[in-house]
């Protein structure tokens, strides 16, 4: 029986692991992979104390910091698939069939990319459907691609694609660009860009590889097709909460509701922090700080201390 099981190995999970070990809480950390979402970022410039670091190096540092702690146990390369409470004990099951028990749980499982949920998206994933322009743009040299979504991530994807692709469509469902106005003004000047507004993507076309997409032009009500070699989907992210069932309360975005003073969830014994929680700003430093808050509060809880 553990005192604490931490689910996740991003900045939140790593920070929690270090603090829990130093507080001598009997802890197990379970993570699919260390590092978190900014792993793929070529350059993180706001991790406080470090002017510039690649996402990969940041991930390695986080992992090393956790592994250097005495007493913490780690299961990585596995996924939590279920958390069940009975008589104030939490049982946690993993994909590889392991199971563990704990008095408390800290959920720091972050978020993942939102999918369109349309035909062709799954079938052509990796076959022209791509999720990371910084990573995959060089594969589309001389090709025609579309970016779906005009938030910051979408605009940045367009910018990442310019040096490689011969033509880039930016497809936006509404009539407003949600992303940063300065970035938008900058990319608009590039003759490779064609912007299609009020377009709802209906299907990604292709048999073995992407050959195009079908969209509904909301203004004319007509279905139209584009010929393409690649589609980058940038329509936001959704929290990784499925393994919790209805153990904890969530908000309308499926983010776990927490008390922002302690990070406690609606379920006694369960805390959450970072991108999986209903925190307003989703950033590495904030995830780490909020997870630390949670661990300090868990330490109090395990010792029967109540602070007002």
């Amino acid at each position, binding site marked *: 029986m553990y005192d604490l099981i931490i689910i996740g190995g991003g900045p939140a999970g790593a920070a929690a692991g270090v603090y829990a070990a130093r507080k001598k809480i009997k802890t197990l950390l379970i993570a699919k992979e260390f590092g978190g979402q900014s792993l793929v970022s070529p350059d993180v410039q706001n991790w406080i104390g470090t002017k510039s670091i690649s996402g990969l190096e940041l991930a390695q540092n986080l992992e090393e910091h956790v592994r250097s702690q005495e007493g913490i146990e780690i299961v990585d390369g596995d996924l939590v698939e279920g958390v069940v409470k009975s008589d104030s004990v939490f049982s946690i099951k993993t994909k590889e069939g392991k199971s563990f028990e704990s008095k408390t749980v800290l959920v720091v499982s972050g978020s993942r990319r939102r999918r369109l949920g349309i035909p062709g998206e799954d079938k052509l994933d990796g076959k022209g459907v791509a999720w990371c322009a910084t*990573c995959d743009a060089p594969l589309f040299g001389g090709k025609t691609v579309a970016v779906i979504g005009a938030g910051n991530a979408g605009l940045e994807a367009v910018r990442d694609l310019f040096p490689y692709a011969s033509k880039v469509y930016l497809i936006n469902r509404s009539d407003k660009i949600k992303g940063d106005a300065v970035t938008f003004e900058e990319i608009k000047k590039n003759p490779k860009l064609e912007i299609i507004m009020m377009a709802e993507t209906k299907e990604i076309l292709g048999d073995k590889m992407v050959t195009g997409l079908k969209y509904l032009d909301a203004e004319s009500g007509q279905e139209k097709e584009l010929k393409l070699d690649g589609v980058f989907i940038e329509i936001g992210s959704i929290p990784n909460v499925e393994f919790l069932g209805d153990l904890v309360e969530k908000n309308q975005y499926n983010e776990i509701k927490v008390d922002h003073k302690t990070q406690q969830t609606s379920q006694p014994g369960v805390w959450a922090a970072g991108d999986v929680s209903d925190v307003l700003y989703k950033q590495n430093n904030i995830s780490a700080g909020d997870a630390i808050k949670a661990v300090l509060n868990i330490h109090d809880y395990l010792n029967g201390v109540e602070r007002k």
Partner: protein
Amino acid sequence: MANKVTIYSTPTCVYCKMAKDFFKNNNVEYTEHNVAEDDSAREEMVHKSHQLGVPVIDINGEVFVGFNKREIAKALGVSE
């Protein structure tokens, strides 16, 4: 018997770097093709893996898409 290892990569791909670091740490020799610049290598990669994602790792003819340390270690016969 030495493993014959080929990796298809791009300079911006994080998992390619992870895979190459893993090879280096385990003294595994490998051939690398940068598919961002080498079109014929890109075609070869698509032909072998039927997809466009990187890295693609070919170990003695067995093709892996992505870098899953556990699978790759097993195929190479080294520890994780």
